[in-house]
């Protein structure tokens, strides 16, 4: 980005909520399936059908709001957003206009360098999803040039949460870090699968640029059709560059909607604001208002799980983990919870992180069994860490033990005890091994003494081998070098 300009970005996310049924009827809320098999009079907008809100969906939005520290107004209602579109069965969408379920709050997120940042939310509201159109007759499935469209209403009426941020993000990286944190949070809360590839998370970005130091907002454009976090980052970058270039050449930014073209890496104009819809919002007379009791909010707050940024702060600031391992753990909630248990039992965050993200994750990858589902219980891993920390086994043995624990689910202390694998720091015993090895390798000893110091490594290895790996490596090293010394 040009140093004299600053980008101002706001992100609007549509999140399909994880419920058994749709927002206003009892049809299944499931991704995919045979076209037009999850439909009923209500979600198909048949004459006479009426919506009844899904209590779980409302609870999910409130949970998200509470997690983000939003205000939960005591009164909320549903409104109709009126516009015609073939994939919208009633030709209005039940949404929320001026009294959303939650107001304000913020998403805390972190950058690659570990800086923790915060982006305020404007609001979160609840609405219903549309069906899906497939554009046919043009060959490429795109709407432009197609000669007809095919409609599947399985998705129509799926509960959709719209989460709108304030324009407080200032780079494509911040935007994606914000989205990552939002995604992880909703996942931890269990309110959505948040899969961009399945469309359960969709986002648009509002982008404008302004001279650094200016407090006025520039003219914004809205970017759509971004299908992955990577494309969000690329699209915003490209749009910032486009706007700066326009301003640089003295042109004016037009307020409009622009689509991201993944193939060519550019945004292109979709429609200008002048043709904006007149949505004729009004309170849906088929539904009654919602009154949210503060006791219900308190119950939700009490039941909140640990949130991703809370974990991040603990892992980095308290445990001293790096940004990358901390993020890796947080990315996988079950793994993070496993890690938390290991730390609680062992008191050794760094070692716990090394094992969990290192050998244990490798074993998990190789076997296709998740760490938390494996035979290695948190208790046993903590025991192993203790064995290492107290120098009762060395790292090489520890690695072997872990492989055996993975297979058999045994306590490492029991294995060590049974098979005499404890590390030995008995100076006299190790000295005997050293003497044996040096006696058997006279030539190498001579070579060392002649200046080929690199043979020491081989000799140390031989000593370790002779001790069946149990010797304290530091002591072996010390003794070998001592005895080779002239």
């Amino acid at each position: 980005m040009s140093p004299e300009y600053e980008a101002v970005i706001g992100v609007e996310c549509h999140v399909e909520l994880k419920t058994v049924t749709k927002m206003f009827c009892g049809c299944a809320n499931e991704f995919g399936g045979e076209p037009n098999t999850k439909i009923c009079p209500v979600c198909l907008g048949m004459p006479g059908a009426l919506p009844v809100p899904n209590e779980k969906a409302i609870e999910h939005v409130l949970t998200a709001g509470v997690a983000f520290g939003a205000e939960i107004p005591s009164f909320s209602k549903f409104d109709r957003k009126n516009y015609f579109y073939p994939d919208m069965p009633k030709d209005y969408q039940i949404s929320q206009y001026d009294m959303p379920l939650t107001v304000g709050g913020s998403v805390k997120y972190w950058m690659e360098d570990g800086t923790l940042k915060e982006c305020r939310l404007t609001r979160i509201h609840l609405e219903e999803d549309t069906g899906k159109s497939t554009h046919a007759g043009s060959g490429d499935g795109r709407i432009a040039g197609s000669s007809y469209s095919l409609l599947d209403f399985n998705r129509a009426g799926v509960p959709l949460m719209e989460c709108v941020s304030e324009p407080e993000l200032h780079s494509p990286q911040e935007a994606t870090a914000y989205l990552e944190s939002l995604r992880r949070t909703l996942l931890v809360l269990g309110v959505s699968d948040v899969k961009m590839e399945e469309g359960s998370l969709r986002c648009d970005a509002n982008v404008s640029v302004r001279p650094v130091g200016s407090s006025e907002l520039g003219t914004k454009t809205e970017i759509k059709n971004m299908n992955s976090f990577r494309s969000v980052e690329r699209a915003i970058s490209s749009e910032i560059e486009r706007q700066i270039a326009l301003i640089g050449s003295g042109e004016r930014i037009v307020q409009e909607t622009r689509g991201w073209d993944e193939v060519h890496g550019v945004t292109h104009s979709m429609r200008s604001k002048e043709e904006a819809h007149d949505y004729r919002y009004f309170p849906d007379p088929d539904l009654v208002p919602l009154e949210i009791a503060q006791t219900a909010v308190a119950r939700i707050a009490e039941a909140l799980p640990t949130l991703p940024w809370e974990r991040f702060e603990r892992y980095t600031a308290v445990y001293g983990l790096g940004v990358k391992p901390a993020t890796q753990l947080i990315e996988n909630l079950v793994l993070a919870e496993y890690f938390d248990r290991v730390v609680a039992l062992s008191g050794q965050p760094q070692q716990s992180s090394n094992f969990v993200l290192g050998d244990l994750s490798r074993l998990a990858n190789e076997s296709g069994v998740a760490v938390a589902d494996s035979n290695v219980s948190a208790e046993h891993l903590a025991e192993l860490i203790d064995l290492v920390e107290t120098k009762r086994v060395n790292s090489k043995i520890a690695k072997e033990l872990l492989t055996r624990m993975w297979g058999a689910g045994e306590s490492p202390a029991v294995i060590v005890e049974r098979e005499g694998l404890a590390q030995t720091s008995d100076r006299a015993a190790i000295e005997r091994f050293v003497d044996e090895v040096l006696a058997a390798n006279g030539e190498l000893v001579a070579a060392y003494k002649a200046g080929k110091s690199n043979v020491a490594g081989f000799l140390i290895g031989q000593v370790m081998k002779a001790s069946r790996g149990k010797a304290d490596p530091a002591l072996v090293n010390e003794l070998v070098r001592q005895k080779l010394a002239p």
Partner: protein
Amino acid sequence: MPQELIERSGADIAADVIAGRASAVEVAAATLAHVASVESNVGAYLTVLSEPALAQAARVDERVRNGERLPLAGVPIAVKDNMCLDGTRTTCGSKILENWVAPYTATAVARMLEAGAVAIGKANCDEFAMGSSCENSALGVTRNPYDSTRVPGGSSGGSAAAVAAYEAAIGLGSDTGGSIREPGAFCNLIGFKPTYGRVSRYGLIAFASSLDQIGPLARTVKDAALAYDAMAGYDVMDATSIDRPVELAAESLRKDLRGLRVGIVREFDTKVLGDDMHRLYNDAYRDLERLGADIVEVSLPTADYGLATYYLIAPAECSSNLARFDGVRYGLRAQGDDVRQMYDNTRAAGFGPEVKRRILVGTYALSSGYYDAYYVRAQKARTLTARDFERAFATCDLIACPAASCPAFQFAAKSDPYSMYLMDYYTIPMSLAGLPALSVPCGWTVPDGGSLPMPIGLQLCAPLFAEKLLLGAAHAYEQATKHAAARQPALSRVSA
């Protein structure tokens, strides 16, 4: 014998069927035969359910044989064609739904059938229930059984005509601004609109969701009460239906009005209705007094704003409710090069002029820049109307007033839309306030330029949820005056 059978009240038919004096199949067959003989003159039905009605009646007989004491056993009913009945054409009197077969049944209809009623047919109505004469139906003409040159009222005109002409014992109607009460008055019937939310709207094709309410049209208060008892109550499929116990009305009808204060509305001066109507309403108020009621004067200061309020709120809601008729999933489709043109052409071809007018008004009232000036202002005026009634009901138990400003008028008499809207002047305030109200026959008058006496209706209105009181009082008045029984509908026997 069949004529006698079909002229019996629903309550008597049910009693006969339960007691084995008649079978539901006999009643249905007699009714269908009568329908066949008079329909060409009345035109109450858009669809006659001959086969299904007999099959349904056979099931009722089976249930009765199994010992079920069905309160509406074998009672033939007319269902307004804006209510869904699974597997049956449901048109709303509109070309846009002319061939639509409902794949599910409205809750109110299902409850009637569950109680033993037999659906004889789907009754004509003003298109999407918008109108006061049934003339806005795109699919048929319904005549007033008391004078074939006159309208049956509307929008539930088909249900009213069917019941008046003995083509059903009870009719199901829907009332948004008077669409049950006005045809009730025009056809010498009880037309009863319960409290908003008392009867589920699930399966009732919406006109104005915050006002629509299903209710019965019947020849006796007792029948209206039986139908109400069968239909009323919370429905999980309608979020606006009220989860509150229903006090059954049919078993507790009153004999007099002692201890009740009946309010006469100061703003509703019946002198403006002409000498005859003025006299009839004053007689009616005196009869109420004679039955033991204390007559008190009450005021509804914003009553005059009812029409204006209603003609913003109802069209606004209708403009959104009727958006779904777009030629995509069901119903009529007109051709178009693209979806946009297809929409425009489908809706132009499918909707009649009154529906178009209301969609346009409503769209305008909700559109950017006018929402506060029109829609919100009307919603606030609605609050004032509700407060008027609250204040009035602090000093009375019931309100009595005209049900309509004139008896049934001749076809094409109200060609100017606004003159038709004025027909709802006396019924709209109660609709805005969601109150239970009914019309009960209160006399006969020969309209200007007419030769046959036509019935007029007294409107009674009660506080929210006071249906039992309302029906009880209406019963006392009906039994004491027996205005309805004074004349027989000419058309019911034309070719019988």
